[in-house]
């Protein structure tokens, strides 16, 4: 596998990328390192993992992080209800051998595998997406470090489970909280920013193929300018695509003030942003070069 294969694999899955992104993905894979992706919301951080899984034709295992995420939800848990039932049932069978009982009670049958355990017990290396890592607390981070460096999980009742294959790990974050140096040391770092005009236009055209060429151009230009405005929540590519899809579905072939005003809610999700944009819309449209038809 080389750099070009990765690039064309990503492209073939409809992910428009640049050299920097494909180099990061390529190196993360060849060096067997986790890839830590940071960047603003809605620029396709999570998408990379999805596309990678498709391109490599392997499973995508996703662990969504949140505050208070613990090992019960990230690694494994015992299925207590079934264990209790099993105990009740074994009463009748007069199983006198406690060791045998123990080994049955704490066997694979009653083990609920959560994402991390799932990821290391696959035959073919899956893509493990640890999404929004900055939402989980520090304890979980240090815990993850252990798995990332040794690729084994210890379950007291069973023993240590070695990874069958080493997953391709993608960790994403929004910089809500700075991740620790220790974690960063084990990862390659990739920053994805809002796309340049050309790249965004290409993405719009690819993801919304039915769109009018003129409209695509205007939408992209508008979004590029909009991101320079002072906003509480800057719209990402996801918003551009939503907007493009919506307008294309209504068979518009150009932008005008009325259309923009009535559909602002698709791209801006903050009341104050909408309000401010409405007020400065004429100015913004002038910059974009859209003339309103009267």
């Amino acid at each position, binding site marked *: 596998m080389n750099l070009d294969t990765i690039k064309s694999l990503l492209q073939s899955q409809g992910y428009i990328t640049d050299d920097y992104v494909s180099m990061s993905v390529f190196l993360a894979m060849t060096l067997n390192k986790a890839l830590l992706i940071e960047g603003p919301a809605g620029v396709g951080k999570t998408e990379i993992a999805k596309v990678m899984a498709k391109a490599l034709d392997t499973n995508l295992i996703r662990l969504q992080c949140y505050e208070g995420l613990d090992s019960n939800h990230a690694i494994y848990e015992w299925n*207590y209800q079934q264990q209790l039932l099993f105990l009740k049932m074994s009463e009748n069978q007069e199983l006198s051998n406690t060791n045998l009982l123990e080994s049955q009670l704490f066997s694979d049958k009653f083990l609920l595998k959560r994402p991390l355990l799932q990821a290391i017990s696959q035959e073919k290396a899956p893509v493990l997406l640890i999404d929004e890592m900055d939402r989980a607390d520090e304890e979980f981070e240090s815990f993850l470090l252990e798995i990332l460096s040794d690729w084994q999980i210890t379950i007291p009742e069973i023993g240590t489970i070695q990874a069958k294959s080493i997953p391709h790990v993608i960790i994403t974050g929004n910089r809500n909280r*700075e991740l620790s140096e220790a974690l960063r040391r084990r990862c390659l770092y990739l920053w994805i920013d809002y796309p340049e005009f050309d790249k965004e236009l290409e993405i719009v055209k690819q993801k919304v193929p039915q769109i009018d060429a003129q409209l695509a151009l205007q939408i992209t230009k508008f979004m590029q300018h909009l991101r320079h405005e002072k906003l509480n929540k800057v719209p990402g590519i996801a918003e551009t695509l939503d907007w493009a899809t919506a307008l294309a579905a209504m068979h518009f072939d150009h932008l005008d003030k009325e259309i923009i005003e009535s559909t602002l809610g698709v791209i801006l999700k903050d009341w104050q942003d909408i309000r401010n944009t409405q007020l400065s819309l004429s100015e913004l449209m002038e910059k974009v070069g859209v003339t309103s038809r009267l």
Partner: protein
Amino acid sequence: MLQRETEISAHIVAFSRYLRVKGFMVSPMRESDALLALTHIEPTKQNFYLALRCVFPQNFKNLKDFDAIFDNYWKELEKGVDAKIAMAEEESAKKKKKPVEKKQSAPAFESLKNWLYGNKEKEEELAAYSDNVSLEKKDFSAFTDEDLAEAEKLIKLIARRLAQKPSRRFEPTRRGGVLDLRRTLQKNFRNGEEILFLHHKKAKPTRVKLFLICDVSKSMEIYSRFFVQFMYAFKKVYHRIETYVFSTSLQRISEELNESDFRTALQKVSDTVPHWAGGTDIGQSLQNFAENDCQRLLDRKSIVLIISDGLDMGEPELVEDSLKAIKKRANKIVWLNPLAGHAGYKPEARSMKAALPLLDVFASGHNFETLKEVILKLKV
């Protein structure tokens, strides 16, 4: 061929060293990663640059700095200048620059010092009229040794009551809580199939980690002895605590405060701190903290308590930047300014002004009552 390879590895090692000088964290592991990466790519200039850009930066700031550093280094190299010379030049340029800056700020420092001494007299005056019989209301500047012993008792009480929020992790408990099925099963199946004992768990409390950073410069002199004592007493009863003092630079004094006798501890502290009762550079000191210990020790359960009057000769921008960096990691930043307890106080000092918008709590803490109030409210 072999020779070429050793050449490139030597360059990567030299480049890594250069990056370290520029504030990158480059472990030997990273260096070997970089070399490994180069074996997997087509050897073009663009690929070489991209590969190093993927491997070396570890955070957003690194990434932003990388391009300039990369250009700098390899351009110098292309010119045929030995990398080490380039580095040495850079270093010496830095060294040359610094004294010049200091000389420029010297007059400002003088005037500030004058102002500070003038101010101190006023402070003592102010301190005198708040000399209350009640210990809690007494300004720290008027504390006697007996008062201090009394204060220590109060601190013990406070430390015990330091606010605790339940976390989302669990610990076993004998009373109350919810059923812990895992432990119940583990402990019971040895008695046969019957469940005889139930085990419970309850939410583990989140324990606040405290970082006390105290200004011991000249302008704080009348307060600093008390605050060091406060840190000392606090450290005795509360273990999740790190203590620092600063004047022109930051000094961690957690070790020194471990002495069993306060007088020895105080002696040790004032011995280790180079500028006790000297000038102040809050920005520089906070930057020290943000760059070193902040990265390693701070987490979302940490509260940073800065005790300073905000009067300094440093750059307010530095204060702002460092506080921003700290804020990203810590749960809360609390600033106690003893001057703020006096009627008519306004945060006019430049560093104080720069810091204010970034603080979660700004309080005076100039007597025990206000201090107690602030500490008891500390929650993560």
